[in-house]
């Protein structure tokens, strides 16, 4: 599907949030591609979703933005069947955390469909992910590692307004199942001046800030924590290079290795649980494929190994933040 990015840009000039970019991308897709429909809980009518990511779309595109029962497994199963029939369904999970009850359809049905039958399974599952104040153990999770561990899925996690827009459009264009992890914390916090005119494709990481002393490899909301740290250190003459992975699977190993080749030092930061997951995968790739590029031991920083706490005081300690990232960075630079 050829896409003219932001051809239909209603935002040039005025500012657009990460959430609005997701809505605009879906409006664009519904407009440009009749195979696209959106399936999820509370997404239709005037309501437009728990986070308003589909606000107005049901009226604008009758019959193509459909409310579902509280049946995540069936939502994804239905999307798989529709995709096999040539449609391009987008499934909105109300929270990433609830995809746990759709996991079987995602891993064992969508993820195996093409390999088993050679029929592509172009579904896009939107996961409102990550922590926000007061959301607690079941409305804060980041599940990208679980979906990346199994074969047959593409997993993305946009960290910017521009990527939120172009990567969702590209996700739907891909003939394979894509898990689109959108970060709830960025919904309103993040603004851009306009929708992008072009884009970096899915599968490519981005050097969001160049540096020579340390590479911080991260993704999603943590990119912005890392950038704050980099800015801070720069004032003291230490230049941190910040890599936004953008795509969790396939991981852009080359861009990561090239960065470590420049800096010799690596810190991986993620908001998910610490055992395994994205940070372990990145460090493993550098250790196995770029061992001799490292001048010091690589390090990782993740959330704590407990459920995600409700209370803001506890949550602030549970997830990595600029303060804890800076502390880790200092350790590595001291080595």
């Amino acid at each position: 599907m050829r896409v003219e990015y932001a051809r239909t840009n209603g935002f040039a000039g005025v500012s657009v949030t990460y959430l609005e970019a997701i809505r605009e991308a879906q409006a664009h897709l519904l407009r440009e591609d009749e195979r696209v429909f959106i399936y999820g809980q509370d997404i239709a009518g005037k309501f437009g979703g728990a986070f308003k990511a589909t606000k107005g779309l049901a009226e604008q595109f009758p019959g193509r933005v459909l409310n579902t029962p509280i049946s995540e497994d069936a939502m994804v199963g239905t999307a798989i069947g529709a995709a096999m029939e040539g449609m391009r369904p987008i499934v909105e999970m109300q929270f990433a955390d609830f995809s746990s009850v759709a996991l079987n359809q995602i891993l064992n049905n969508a993820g195996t469909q093409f390999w088993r039958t050679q029929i592509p399974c172009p579904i896009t599952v939107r996961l409102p992910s990550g922590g926000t104040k007061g959301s607690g153990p079941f409305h804060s999770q980041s599940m990208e590692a679980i979906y990346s561990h199994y074969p047959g899925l593409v997993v993305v996690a946009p960290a910017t307004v521009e990527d939120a827009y172009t990567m969702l459009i590209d996700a739907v264009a891909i003939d394979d199942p894509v898990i689109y992890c959108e970060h709830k914390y960025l919904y309103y916090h993040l603004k851009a001046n306009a929708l992008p005119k072009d884009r970096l494709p899915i599968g490519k990481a981005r050097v969001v800030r160049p540096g020579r002393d340390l590479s911080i490899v991260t993704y999603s909301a943590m990119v912005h924590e890392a950038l704050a740290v980099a800015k801070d250190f720069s004032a003291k003459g230490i230049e941190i290079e910040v890599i936004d992975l953008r795509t969790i699977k396939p991981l852009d190993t080359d861009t990561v290795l090239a960065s470590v080749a420049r800096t010799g030092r690596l810190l991986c930061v993620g908001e998910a649980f610490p055992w395994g997951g994205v940070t372990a995968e990145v460090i493993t790739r550098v250790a196995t494929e770029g061992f001799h590029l490292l001048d010091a031991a690589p390090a990782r920083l993740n959330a704590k190994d407990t459920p995600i706490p409700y209370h803001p005081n506890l949550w602030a300690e549970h997830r990595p933040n600029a303060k804890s990232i800076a502390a880790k960075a200092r350790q590595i630079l001291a080595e």
Partner: protein
Amino acid sequence: MLQTAQRESKSKAAPPHERYLEAYRWMLVARVLEEKLASLYRGGMITGGVYLGRGQEAISAACGIFLQKGDVFAPLIRDQAGRSAFGEPLLDVMRTYLGSRQGPMRGRDGNIHRGRPKDNQLAMISHLGAMIPVMVGKLLAKRMKGEKGFVGLTTIGEGGMQTGASHEGLNIAAVERVPLVVVATNNHFAYSTPNDRQFACADLVDRAKGYGYEGSSVDGTDLTACLEVIGAAVQRARAGRPPQLVVASILRLAGHGEHDDASYVPTEVKKELFARDALELAEKLIAEKGLGGDDYLKKTRAEIAAEVEEAIATAQGEDAPVGSDENWCALSTRELMDSLA
């Protein structure tokens, strides 16, 4: 907290159900408490979501009131009346919402996710339907341990009934023939979703037969009916009958949460009989029959308001949890915690 509701009603006129005034009081406790929560929320005093049971108080009070010591209650998000009737201190509620470190969840979880499993009040996880099999396990274990005469009661919404978890839980309860009462409230909306996008059967009580349950329906705006129907279901379960499914009909008289203005609810729906306010109807009846004696309604509301204010004051005087003091340990076997660098 004064468990004043335990006191005998002193009215001369006979109430329509022997526990009518007691149940009404729990309805009022919930209403007064939740109105306070709503204003605290609007005042920015509460972090996270606030989910209210407004309109569901008669059903919920009837759920809590027939449970005895040794029974198990697994409430959901609109069960303040039942939680209170089952013995949850108001202070638990306020500590949880106001973020006191002394709350039952100690800041680890919030709002309606609170519980006291030690006292047989289970702490729900968010995933709808997931608590039904947990209740089955509690009841199965009690039977294995030789306990007798106990029941379990859990609640669910018409939306939650569409989850695979609730299906498996409802079915396995019947296979194990545990003494379970499931009270399903069809409040005509699941968040913003109306019934026609949730299920296609004429009446959810039709599911009872398919699971081997005894089913009954009740008008959730009528406290007398709720007490009779839910009371009878609890009695049947206790007597060893198959699991009981009670389907109650009401309208949710609040947003899904306090963040939600529920503007998606059509005005015609608000005119339906099921849209009436059970609390108003109960108070109308109490006034007409003069139950509870002079000024009963005013006095009761004042008592409860005082209890609520007391709980708020206490909770507000307490410290919030502090990350640096937190014991970051997800296992009860500390030495098995992985040391992750």
